[in-house]
């Protein structure tokens, strides 16, 4: 059965590309040399999106191969946990942020305190020891909002 996503996703691509092209043509007024290639690529994408939408509406959307392993639906909790790393990094920097994130994630998701502590220490060792001290990558230790 066709899912709504099969229609919404190409519509979104179409809308974003069309909006970008319109801004380039009518707001920033790029010359033809500047906008030529993006215009060609963008129009191609938009036309293909329309064809894709039409195919989905008429029941000709691509189907997964019969022997393909079906993808499990994503849980919103997992998505929230993944994106939670960003506020951790912003709040605590690139060394302590990931370490605290790991500690929080592992404890909340049922790992033992010992494993959580070892993983957190390993994270500190990798970010501070390997990346900052050894590889001299200028990674901000202080919070990013500082």
């Amino acid at each position: 059965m066709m899912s709504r996503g099969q229609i919404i996703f190409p519509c979104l691509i179409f809308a974003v590309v069309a909006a970008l092209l319109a801004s380039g043509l009518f707001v920033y007024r790029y010359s033809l040399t500047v906008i030529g290639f993006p215009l060609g690529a963008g129009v191609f994408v938009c036309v293909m999106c329309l064809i894709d939408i039409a195919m989905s509406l008429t029941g000709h959307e691509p189907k997964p191969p019969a022997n393909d392993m079906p993808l499990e639906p994503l849980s919103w909790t997992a998505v929230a946990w993944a994106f939670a790393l960003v506020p951790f990094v912003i709040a605590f920097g690139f060394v302590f942020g990931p370490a605290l994130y790991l500690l929080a994630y592992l404890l909340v998701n049922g790992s033992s305190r010992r494993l959580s502590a070892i993983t957190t220490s390993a994270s500190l060792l990798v970010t501070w020891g390997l990346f900052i001290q050894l590889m001299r990558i200028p990674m901000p230790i202080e919070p990013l909002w500082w």
Partner: protein
Amino acid sequence: MLDAFLSAGGQVFHPTVLAAMLLALPIGLIVGLLPGISGISALAFLIPFTFGMEPLVGLAFLLGSYTAVSQGGSMTAIVLGIPGEVPNAATVLDGYPLAKQGRAGYAIGAALMASALGGMFGCLILILLLPVMQPVVLAFASPENFFLCLAGIAFIGVLSSGAAVRGLIAGGLGVFLSLFGYDPTEGVPRFWFQFEYMLDGVRLIPLALGLFAIPEVLALMTSGKQIARGDSIEPISYRQGFQGALAVMKYWGTSLRSSSLGAVIGVMPGIGGVTATFVAYAMARQTAGNPETFGRGRIEGVIAPEAAKNAEEGGALVPTLALGIPGSSSMALLLGGFVILGLQPGPEFLTKHLDIAFALAIICAFGNVVASVSMFMLSKPLMHVTRIPGRILAPILLVLVVIGTYSAQNNSYDVLWVFIFGLLGIAMERFYYSRAALLLGFVLGELIERYFLVSLKAHGPFFFMRPIALIIVALVVLGLLWPNRRRIIGLWRPA
């Protein structure tokens, strides 16, 4: 020339040179295992240590680590579905499904053997071509490079068979995204919306890691289960690895074709490893039986990109050494290393230091083999990673992806973009849009525009009327029609 070659052999197997190379190899392997950190980071990290070294010792030190990086990247691509370097993204397509089936060792063995043989092939090409390379490389001007890139684009359709329209959308979107930032001829920034970060356009590493790594991490977080989950999970052993290595011999045609393709792409300055791996993958799919099973754990889908990637590295050394033109950003840094060590690559370098040029080719070949063997030794503990529960592994991988993304260009915004492209990657995976096609389009889009505009300005509207350009077009058409050759020949035969 034979004297120079023999002298090179003698110099390479000097204990100091070997020691320098062996010292640098583990560093390369570790760097390769970290997502987002590429060979360029290994070179940047090691160059300061070469001050005061003998030229060949210093170069062995640098090349030793550089050759090892890609092997590390292949491991993470297969075991975790996260490309260590961007060119490793092509290995994810079939390597990771094999790991999910509990056959990571098989894929690792094939990847390492293909890498070693591809690397040796690339170095052989380097040795053979160095003395005669100058006119060949110079024969490839903007029009030829434009058609080479166009040839890469032609394979987008192959990467997306089964959902051709969606593959074309993905490829076109990749091209479109690559055109953000400064335009190559007038220097006008496009689609930057007064956001300084966007002046340089969309960055490759957040895009590649977002498209390929984030969906896998989220899938692991959701299920909480281990990566290897098939019905027929094989026990972890070196035996799987040996079987994988033997598969490279079985599919020797794929390996040879991909190595040749990688070496040719490497020789052309500025086209790069990502193109080599994806086009080799597409070619393998095009020439194999049952192409629809690619993407679900076909071993040729691992062999082809791995062979091409390492052969490309040998090829990329050709313009660097013969002309002083770096074929990639890593080669540009290596060129800096040459200067620090008191050498100036270019045509004169080959007349004065042909022995060193040959020695570098031997170091590359030797480095590839040693790195493959070392990685093979490490493969068993790495395979155990596929048996760690997802609820523990996923957050660790996410942290590595974020830190690796930041480290690539020391830019915090890259981290935000990796999540944005992650969302795109999730949607693409679920609605059957080829992520590989998007990445290939992205890598080639900007090059196509640049070479097209330069060709038009330098050679006029008939820039395509050049023998090599026409040969490239003919080869591409032949390559695309090859699987349907019987049907086409049948059309010509009288009924």
